[in-house]
C-alpha cells in the first residue's frame, strides 16, 4: 500500500509541508549490499570511566573502515552519520552529564538517516540504588531522544548484561545492526545483549552462509520478505505456508533457490515434516515462526470460531513444533517468533490476537534457558504498523493515524522486520536470548 502522504511530503511540495508545520516523515535509507555502513563519520564519546570500552568500540568501527572521530569538532558543513555514546563504566548520574551534553551539541550536525546508539550496562539484581538509577536512566534518555530526532534518524541502545564485553561477538553485531540501514525502522529500543564469544571474523554480506532456515507463513507479505532476506544473507530457506497458498509459495521458493513445503503448521506431524524437508539441505539451523492470522472481534462478541483458530495458529502450533524439535534432539536451534506491538500494548478488538502475541513474548523469555542449554536462542520481533496486503485492508482513517503515530511518522516495510529477524538468527547474535525487539518506528503504544 503506497503511503501517498509520505511521497507528497518528500516531493516538490516539501517546503509547503514544512511551512504548514505538517508532519514530515523521511524516506528511510534501507540496506543495500555493498553500500556504506553509515551515511557519514561516526563519533564515539564516553564518560571517563568508560574510556577503555569507547576505545574498544572505536577499534571495532575502524576495523569496518568507518571514519571514526573521537572529538565533536567537524569541518564546516560536515555531518555525522552516527554518534555512539558509551556509558558502560558510569556509576553516578553526574558522570553521564558531560558525554550526553557532548552528544547534544552534535545533534544538529547529524545527517538524515543518522544514528545515535548508546552502549551501557543493564540494571542487574543487587545493583546499588545509585548504580541502578544511573544505568536505568539510559532507557529514558534513548526513548526520549528517539522521539526528538528527525529526518529518519533513530536512537537505540545496547544494554550489556552479565559480564558481556563491548567487543564481544554479540555486542559488536548489535552495534553494527543499530548503525546500519538494516535497522531503518527500529527506533527508541534498548536491546539486552548477554555474554558471547570474542568477536571473530564475520562475512557481513552473508551472515547466514551455510545455514538452513525455515520460515512459516512465507507465501506473501512479511514471511516472503523474511525468506528473501535470509536467502540474501546466505541461508538455504525452506518456505512454509498452507496448501491453498502454494502457488505464491512456489514462486517465492523458486525466486530464492529455496524449497516450498505446503504444510498446515497446526498438524500433529508438522515438526516431522519440517525435519524431513530440511534434511536434504543439511539440517535445521534457524526457525522463524512468522505464520499468523487475525480474527478481530470485540471480546463481548467473541465466539470460538474467532478465538480458537487464532490461538491454534499463532501460539499453540509453534509451542508444539518447538517442543517436538527439541525432543527430536535438534541442537543449536535459533528461533525467532513474530510478536506484535499488540502483544505489548493491546489493541481494541484484538483480545485473541493480543493473547497470542503476548504469549509469544513470554514464550521467548521462558524458552531462553531451554534453548541456551542446547546451544540455541529464542527471541521475538514485535512489528508495529507494517505496510502489507493485510494492513492495506484496514480502513483508511485508521491506517493514516497508525502511520503518523510512530516517531518515524510512517509505517514500516516487511523488509524491516526481515532484517531484524535475520540479525537475531545470525551466528554472532548468539548472546541475545529471550528478548523481544520492537520494529515499530517507535510506535506510541506500550513500552
Amino acid at each position, binding site marked *: 500500500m503506497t503511503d501517498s502522504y509520505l511521497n507528497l511530503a518528500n516531493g516538490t511540495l516539501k517546503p509547503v509541508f514544512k511551512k504548514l508545520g505538517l508532519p514530515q516523515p523521511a524516506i528511510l535509507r534501507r540496506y543495500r549490499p555493498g553500500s556504506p555502513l553509515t551515511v557519514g563519520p561516526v563519533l564515539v564519546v564516553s564518560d571517563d570511566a568508560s574510556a577503555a570500552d569507547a576505545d574498544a568500540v572505536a577499534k571495532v568501527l575502524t576495523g569496518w573502515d568507518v571514519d571514526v572521530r573521537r572529538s565533536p569538532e567537524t569541518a564546516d558543513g560536515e555531518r555525522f552519520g552516527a554518534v555512539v555514546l558509551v556509558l558502560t563504566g558510569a556509576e553516578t548520574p553526574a558522570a553521564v552529564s558531560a558525554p550526553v551534553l557532548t552528544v547534544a551539541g552534535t545533534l544538529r550536525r547529524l545527517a538524515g538517516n543518522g544514528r545515535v546508539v548508546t552502549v551501557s550496562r543493564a540494571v542487574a539484581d543487587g545493583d546499588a540504588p545509585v548504580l541502578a538509577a544511573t544505568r536505568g536512566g539510559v532507557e529514558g534518555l534513548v526513548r526520549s531522544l528517539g522521539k526528538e530526532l528527525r529526518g529518519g534518524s533513530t536512537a537505540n541502545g545496547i544494554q550489556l548484561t552479565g559480564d558481556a564485553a563491548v567487543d564481544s561477538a554479540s555486542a559488536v553485531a548489535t552495534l553494527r545492526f543499530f548503525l546500519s540501514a538494516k535497522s531503518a525502522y527500529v527506533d527508541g529500543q534498548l536491546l539486552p545483549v548477554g555474554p558471547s564469544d570474542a568477536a571473530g571474523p564475520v562475512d557481513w554480506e552473508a551472515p547466514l552462509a551455510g545455514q538452513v532456515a525455515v520460515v512459516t507463513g512465507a507465501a506473501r507479505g512479511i514471511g516472503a520478505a523474511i525468506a528473501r532476506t535470509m536467502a540474501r544473507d546466505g541461508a*538455504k530457506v525452506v518456505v512454509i505456508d498452507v*496448501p*491453498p*497458498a*502454494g*502457488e505464491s*509459495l*512456489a*514462486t517465492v*521458493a*523458486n525466486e530464492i*533457490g*529455496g*524449497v*516450498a*513445503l*505446503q*504444510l*498446515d503448521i497446526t*498438524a500433529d506431524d508438522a515438526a516431522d515434516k519440517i525435519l*524431513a524437508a530440511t*534434511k*536434504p*539441505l543439511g539440517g535445521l539451523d534457524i526457525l522463524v515462526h512468522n505464520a499468523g492470522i487475525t480474527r478481530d472481534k470485540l471480546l463481548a462478541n467473541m465466539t470460538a470460531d474467532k478465538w480458537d483458530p487464532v490461538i491454534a495458529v499463532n501460539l499453540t502450533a509453534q509451542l508444539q513444533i518447538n517442543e517436538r524439535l527439541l525432543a527430536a534432539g535438534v541442537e543449536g536451534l535459533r528461533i525467532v517468533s513474530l510478536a506484535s506491538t499488540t502483544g505489548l500494548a493491546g489493541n481494541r478488538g484484538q483480545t485473541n490476537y493480543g493473547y497470542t502475541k503476548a504469549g509469544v513474548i513470554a514464550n521467548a523469555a521462558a524458552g531462553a534457558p531451554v534453548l541456551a542449554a542446547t546451544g540455541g536462542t529464542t527471541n521475538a520481533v514485535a512489528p508495529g504498523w507494517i505496510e502489507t496486503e493485510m494492513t492495506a485492508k484496514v480502513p483508511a482513517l485508521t491506517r493514516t493515524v497508525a502511520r503518523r503515530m510512530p516517531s518515524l511518522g510512517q509505517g514500516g516495510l516487511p523488509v524491516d522486520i526481515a532484517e531484524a529477524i535475520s540479525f537475531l538468527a545470525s551466528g554472532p547474535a548468539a548472546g541475545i536470548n529471550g528478548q523481544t525487539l520492537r520494529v515499530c518506528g517507535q510506535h506510541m503504544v506500550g513500552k
Partner: protein
Amino acid sequence: MSTTPAPVPSTREAVIIGGNRIPFSRAGKKYVRTSNQDMFTAALEGLVARFGLQGERLGEVVGGAVLKHSKNFNLVRESVLGSSLAPTTPAYDVQQACATGLEAAIAVTNKIKLGQIESAIAGGTDTVSDAPIVVSDRLRAALLDANHAKTTGAKVKALLQIRPKDLAPATPSTGEPRTHLSMGEHQAITTAKWGISREAQDEIAFNSHQNLARAWESGFFDDLVTPYKGLTRDDNLRADTSLEKLAKLRPVFGAKLDDAATMTAGNSTPLTDGASAVLFASREWAEERELPILAKFVDAETAAVDFVHGHEGLLMAPVAAVPRLLARQGLTLEDIDFFEIHEAFASTVLTTLAAWEDEEYCRTELGLDGAFGKVDRSRLNVNGSSLAAGHPFAATGGRIIATAAKLVSAKARETGQPARALISVCAAGGLGAVALVESV
C-alpha cells in the same frame, strides 16, 4: 506369451522422488485462455520448488499434449526454458493420446535404467479450453494456393475460391479418425457387449468422488498439487454427490444401440484442463541429494487392439497389456496392493475387470490358460481417479504415477512389507499403457 521378453537383470533402478500437478479444472472454467505451455510450466515450477531444483540440469524433461497448437511444436523444451530449471536441461515432446504422460515416464525411466541419464521429469498437459481451432480444408487449400501463387492475379484467383461457409472453423473433435465415432460411442459398444449395468457404473463414479474427496481432506495432495490461478482443488470433484443424484442423469452415449444406454455425464470423465509432472532419478542421484525416494518404477508394457474392424473395444488395450507385464514380473493380480485404473469411463474400468474374470475371453483373446483373475475392489482407485479429478489427457499419467508412488510408500512403511501398484491407462487409437510401481 512367447513374444514377451524376459526382464533384463543388469539394469539399475529408476526411482520416483515425487510429483506435482496443478488442480484439474473442468473445460471452460478456471484455465480459460491458459495455454498448455503455461500449465506445464506451472507444474514444473511447483515440482522445482518442492525439491529445490532451481538451476539444476536434469537429464531430461519429457512430456506432451494431446490437443496441441502447431506453434507448440517444442512444447516441453519451451516450458523448461520458462521454468527455474537450468536452461541446459534437454527436453522433447511425446504423444500417445491419453497414455502420453505414462509413455513419457516409461521413456525417461528406461534411460535412467540404462544409465544414459541420472534424473528426469516426465509429465503432460492438456487444455480443451485453449484447444487449437482448425480452419476448414477448403479455406486452408485456398490460402496455401494463394501463398504459392507467383503473380498477384493468381493470388487473387486463389483467394476467390473461398466461399462464406469455408470460413467456419472445423470443430475440435475427440472422434476416432478411422471410425468417426466419439470415444464415448466406442465405449458404449464395449459396455453393451459386456453387459455392464448403469448401477455398477454409477457406483464406480460415486466411489471415485468419495475417495478423491477423502484424499483431499486428509491432506494426501498437500505435497502432490500446487494451486494455480486461484484454484486450490480439482473443481470437478463433487464430494456431495450420491448414487441417487447419479441415477437421475440422462444417458449421453449409446443412444443408438439396441441395448438401453447407460453412460451418463456422471459416469463418464468430463473434458478437463490441467498439467502434471513427476520427478524420476537413479537411486544414486536421489541419495546424493538426500531427496525422498517414494517408490521405484519397475516395468511397463504397452498394447494395442484392432478396434477399427470392431474386433475389440477401443479402450481395451490395457486388458492385454497387464497380463503380459505381470507375467514378465512373475506376479499375479493378488500380488498388487493398489490398482490405479484410469477412469476414462466408469464402464472402461468395469469392462477391463470383467474381461480379466472371463475364462473364455482370457483363453481366446489373451492366450492365457484360464481367467486372468479378479481385482480386489477395495484396492481399486482408493484415492479417486479421473471421474472425480477430471482427465486432462496427457496430464493423467503423471497424476496417477505420483499418487501410486505415495500410496505404496505409505503402505510399505505401515506394514514393513513391499507394496505394489499397477497403473493402467487406456488411450485413443486402441492403445494402452500399463506400468508397475513398487515400494523401495
